[in-house]
């Protein structure tokens, strides 16, 4: 009985969605376009999800009453995401942004089932006629902070609080380490995997463990400012993740890689409004201002500021690619020849670590 009811509800929902585009075309002038967002963490994480939500609000403000944005936070990566995606579609959201890598399979599945709804998946690689992917070249930011880390570290050991060994995180670790070793060839990066994007207490303990192992500069690819706080307490240096976190650790916070998704979201909403939405893969970086570098800590010496600025402007100008050979991985296998630049495809599938990474 329950199963039949469920199926019936789903069928009814699917019917409603099939009818949607016509309704939308007719009602566009009167009804606001509904845009849905799926978040992996809480909007108050002050990190990754927070950055997406800031962009959502900017998009809402930009279009005012012409659109209505909705979000669902704390969605677990996995089967539950599929349920939430379907629900967002049933509620009439014509454009849905799934903002975490782990939503990939669920988004691909739901996109196939609901061909009239536009889906956008962040940081993934599965695409379809109504499923586009978008990402930011955070690794470019990692190259900037890696340069700073290499110059600021006295012990030559950096700590890296990491979430899951997916290409997105791996390329960040590699770019950070490559940039740091460019200014200090002996620089080592100790990586600690936590198997979570968000767990402040665990992130703090990981930072402590790294500090006790000699790391005097700590960066992170998890979402809370907890590791920075440990740096502040222990008199070490760190970097903000996704948002400017200097309010949490004014002394330790050297700069932050700030995610600025607003230009992309505003553009995609416009495409749906104009009927020009097309699938594709968008990968913007420092140049398009999707990846921003937060203001430097005043305590940072001028030569470090300059070196960081130089790396940043070279990346923007296109004269520097953060992953340029010769590169040997940390097991001794040559990966890139002298002068060879990593292709986007190589970055998207990266599953090896450069020399100097201890993972």
């Amino acid at each position, binding site marked *: 009985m329950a199963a039949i009811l469920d199926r019936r509800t789903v069928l009814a929902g699917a019917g409603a969605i099939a009818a949607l585009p016509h309704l939308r075309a007719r009602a566009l002038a009167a009804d606001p376009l509904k845009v849905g967002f799926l978040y992996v963490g*809480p909007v108050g*994480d002050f990190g990754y999800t927070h950055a997406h939500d800031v962009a959502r609000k900017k998009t809402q403000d930009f279009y005012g009453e012409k659109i209505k944005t909705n979000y669902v936070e704390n969605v677990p990566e996995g089967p539950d995401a599929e349920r939430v995606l379907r629900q967002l579609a049933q509620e009439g959201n014509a454009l849905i942004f799934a903002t975490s890598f782990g939503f990939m399979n669920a988004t691909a599945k739901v996109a196939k089932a609901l061909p009239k709804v536009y889906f956008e998946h962040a940081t993934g690689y599965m695409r379809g006629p109504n499923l586009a992917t978008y990402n930011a070249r955070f690794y470019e930011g990692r190259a900037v902070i890696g340069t700073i880390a290499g110059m600021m570290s006295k012990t030559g050991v950096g700590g890296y609080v990491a979430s899951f060994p997916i290409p997105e995180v791996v390329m960040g670790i590699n770019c950070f380490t490559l940039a740091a070793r460019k200014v200090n060839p002996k620089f080592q990066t100790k990586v600690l995997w*936590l198997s979570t994007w968000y767990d402040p207490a*665990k992130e*703090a303990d990981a930072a402590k*463990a790294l500090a*006790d192992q000699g790391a005097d500069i700590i960066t992170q690819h998890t979402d809370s400012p907890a590791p920075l706080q440990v740096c502040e307490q222990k008199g070490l240096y760190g970097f903000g993740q996704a948002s400017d976190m200097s309010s949490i650790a004014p002394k330790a916070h050297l700069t932050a890689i700030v995610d600025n998704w607003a230009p992309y979201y505003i553009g995609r909403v416009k495409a749906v409004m104009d009927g020009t939405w097309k699938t594709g893969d968008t990968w913007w970086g420092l140049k398009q201002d999707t990846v921003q570098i937060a203001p430097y800590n005043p305590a940072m010496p001028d030569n470090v500021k300059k070196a960081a600025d130089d790396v940043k402007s070279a990346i923007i100008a296109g004269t520097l690619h953060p992953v340029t050979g010769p590169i040997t991985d940390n097991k001794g296998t040559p990966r890139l020849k002298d002068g060879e630049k990593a292709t986007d495809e190589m970055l998207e599938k990266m599953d090896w670590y450069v020399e100097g990474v201890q993972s």
Partner: protein
Amino acid sequence: MSLEIAISIVMTLVIAATPILLAGLGELVVEKSGVLNLGVEGMMLVGAVAGFITASLTGFTPAGYAAAALAGLCASLLFGVLALTIGANQVATGLALTIFGTGLSSLAGAGFVGTTIARLPALFPQSIAGHPILRLAFGYDVIVYLSIALTLAAAWFLNHTRSGLILRCVGESDVSAHAIGYPVTAIRYLAVAFGGALAGLAGAYYSLAVTPMWADRITAGRGWIALALVVFSSWRPWRLLLGAYIFGAVMTLELYSKAAGFALLPPEMLAMLPYLATVVALAVIAMRPSRGRLDAPRCLGKTFRAGA
């Protein structure tokens, strides 16, 4: 491994163990009275946000802890009204309390995201609290010592006082306790309130001491670990103390061993270790030939209605 790192590991594990000990101890007393409150995580979050907001506005961290205990207590009374007075299903009410507490804390804390406050200083003077070796025993804030003292007090209360006996009696056989003339519901209210206050305090330990800041869901599921811990302890305060420190050690040592370059276990295992330890403990306890039961209070989770 150097001595300095060893001391640092122990200090980290004590900090990791303290909030789960506090929350677990509160829940242990609640469960001893025959009530299963699965709202620990929610009460912890309510306490965490109330504590942070109070400490942030007054600039006085102890006031934060007091407010946290009070907020946790109030949240638990909500559970009390639903589950004890009205007689709603305890499991459902507890889960609802967790969902409610998570949402409420997120709403209340929205304006405080990204701010920080001062931690409580160590209880003892800097000369011993900052000493390279003595800090191992004297380098903590007052909450750490309070959590241990409360465990001792709870053990004494439950096993050596008349009131403790009555509380256990209510949990073992509510009908008998009622027949003798004990106010079962009132006693359970007291236990639930105590559990709520400790859960609030435990939550505040995250937002005021472990990571002194406000971020949504700052406890990140530790309330569930505290619940597992109560089962792990087979409802004995001493074992709860031991268990909390074992759980703390498991969480901390794994991070340190990895940072030092020995990967004992894949990180996915690390996340499940406390729960795995609980399952193993349950199996071991259940297999003991002398005691074929888990020592759970007999009336745990059962709704009591006077005259029913």
